[in-house]
């Protein structure tokens, strides 16, 4: 579903060197991949670049989604074809309630795909069901989107959007950071509930904890903008036991 070929990227209009220095990986349909690595490795940058964040520019390579390059596509167009980025620091949108925002998002995607917009009733049904499954406090839905939400509540709200928009590829950017044990379980449950042969996940995480609840098909380790190791789920245990240093040493020796 997702193919990243020798991807290079840096900060837009910046003088610095590339943050991503030639990354390649493939995520098949129905697969769950984890991207791990120490701080500053470029994990979040990778997630942002795939979603089309204007803060970064691609300086080489390609990103293909279902065989088609998405580099020239705007962020909303990428969403319409089935990409979703659950953010590390979700923005507050004052004066706009979650229901309103999500209906507009859903309608925009449907319009782009030539589908009719959902009626208010149809959407409310989907919305209410998703809220009750998400573990999010329903009172928060009366507030403006993300306004005054705690870190954990913001992440739960990202999972709520994921459940409603049902993307083909969901990228979770450090979704587990700052979460307590219960919130972590909720996020993991949310992912597992949406796991299907038609859907893929890219879970960007620093810690192995979430991988105790979500079993990945593959784990990739990023260090300073380069993929230094790819492996199966057991790689998580090695990182847990020995930290990133052992991986880095092995990669250097290889």
């Amino acid at each position, binding site marked *: 579903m997702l193919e990243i070929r020798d991807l290079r990227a840096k900060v837009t209009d910046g003088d610095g060197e590339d943050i991503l220095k030639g990354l390649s990986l493939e995520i098949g349909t129905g697969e769950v991949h984890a991207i791990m690595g120490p701080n500053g490795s470029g994990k979040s940058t990778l997630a942002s670049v795939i*979603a*089309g*964040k*204007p*803060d970064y520019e691609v300086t080489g390579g390609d990103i293909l989604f279902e065989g088609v390059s998405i580099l020239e596509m*705007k*962020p*909303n167009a*990428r*969403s*319409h074809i089935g990409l*979703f*980025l659950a*953010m590390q*620091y*979700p*923005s*507050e*949108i*004052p*004066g*706009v309630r979650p229901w309103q*925002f*999500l209906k*507009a*998002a*859903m309608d*925009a*995607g449907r319009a*782009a795909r030539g589908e009719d917009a959902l009626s208010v009733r149809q959407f409310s049904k989907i919305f209410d069901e998703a809220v009750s499954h998400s573990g999010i406090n329903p009172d928060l839905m009366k507030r*403006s989107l993300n306004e005054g939400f705690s870190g954990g509540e913001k992440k739960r709200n990202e999972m709520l*959007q994921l459940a409603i*928009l049902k993307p083909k590829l969901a990228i979770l950017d450090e979704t587990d950071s700052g979460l307590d044990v219960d919130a972590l379980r909720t996020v993991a449950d949310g992912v597992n509930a949406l796991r299907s042969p038609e859907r893929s996940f890219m879970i960007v995480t620093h810690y192995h904890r979430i991988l105790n609840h979500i079993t990945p098909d593959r784990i990739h380790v990023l260090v300073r903008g380069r993929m230094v190791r790819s492996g199966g789920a057991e790689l998580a245990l090695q990182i847990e036991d020995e930290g990133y240093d052992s991986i880095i040493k092995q990669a250097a020796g290889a």
Partner: protein
Amino acid sequence: MTTAIASRGERYASDYRALIESFGSDGASWFTETREQAWAEFARLGFPTVRRGNELWKYTNVRPIDQAEFVHGAGEVEQVAADLVKSTCPWDDAWTTLTFVDGRFQERLSNLTKQAGLRAGSLADAMHSDRAAVELHLGRHAPYTGDAFRSLNTAFLTDGGFVQVDAGAEIEHPVHLLFITSTSLASRATYPRILWVSGENSGATLIETYVNLAETAQLTDSVAEIVVGDGARVRHYRVQIEHEKSHHIGIERIYQSGHSTYTSTSYATGPAVGRYDIHNLLDAPGGECTLHGLYLTTNRQHQSNEISTTHAKPRCTSHQFFKGVLAGRSQAVFSGKVVVAVDAQKSVAAQKDLNLLLSHGAEIDTKPALEIYADDVKAGHGATAGYVDPDAMFYMQSRGLSADEARAMLVRGFVSEIVDEFEPEALHAYLERKTEEVMPALLAAAD
């Protein structure tokens, strides 16, 4: 003085004389002396085109008004269809509505629903039939002295609304004073006038609406005097739907007695030169005054807001809160002033102005001014001006919204705080519609 200026002055003068003559012997002659004095004052002052050193007009360039040729006074009044009124203006059959077209009262377009304790009608009629009641307050709170637009309005005063709320009355439905500018003349000046007197312990709602149907350079120079009696409550909504070739000067003077409550929320879309000049005098203890508003400007529009409250007596509370959305190369001004007199102890005053700038060419001048002479006072102020948050934009776009859709959503969210203060349902729905109508002009002129 150049020839051009002299001939403009002559035009005004001849229109003024024609107006006086049209009143003949019948026209509320007791007011003629005031009129003549007001005219002399305008002739003396001229328009405030000299801005340097002129604190009140520093940021507002009235040259376009000074240089324009307006037809003043009478002129033909266009027949506007009732359907057009209902589709272009806020309307609710439950309200008591007085409709004015080009400054003249139109009974056929009004809805004079009687409400117990309410007397509402044409000011021109009242100046004949109810002289004492009018004379008691007219010009007392918004005198013609010292200001070109007040003096011009007083000199050319033709008609407007005169509303009296009886002591103790609770007026259930809003009183709507609706002023429409028609397309009948390319360049007309109208001078709407409002006199509102609330008796003790009464409660009422005023909706003051200005809708300009013309797409040419019109001038509206309106003055409203609102007198709030002891313990009375007035909820005031002011709506200004203007065209960017026209000019709009809206002057409001509110006089508050003891333990009275006055709450005002305004909504303004940008004229070429616009000014909302509102001043509350809290002249007895325990009064509460709330002045809120929203202004939306784009292209090269200008909207200045002179928002001022004077705490003349102790233990009054005032709250000023304005929001603006600016696009294109438009300009808005928020000049918020609070004066607390030396004996006005235990005054509480707050002031806030928040602005969302959609383009880098837009400009907001925000000028808070607190003049505090008492020593036991709580007063605070704050103002912000910010551009659209790029992270919020990316967040919304990553969920599928286009850049325009995302910006529109942010604007809607930002203005909703003030728009939601308009409680009458029909009025709220109208303003949501107007916001959607002006949205393309805001987005087109966004960066």
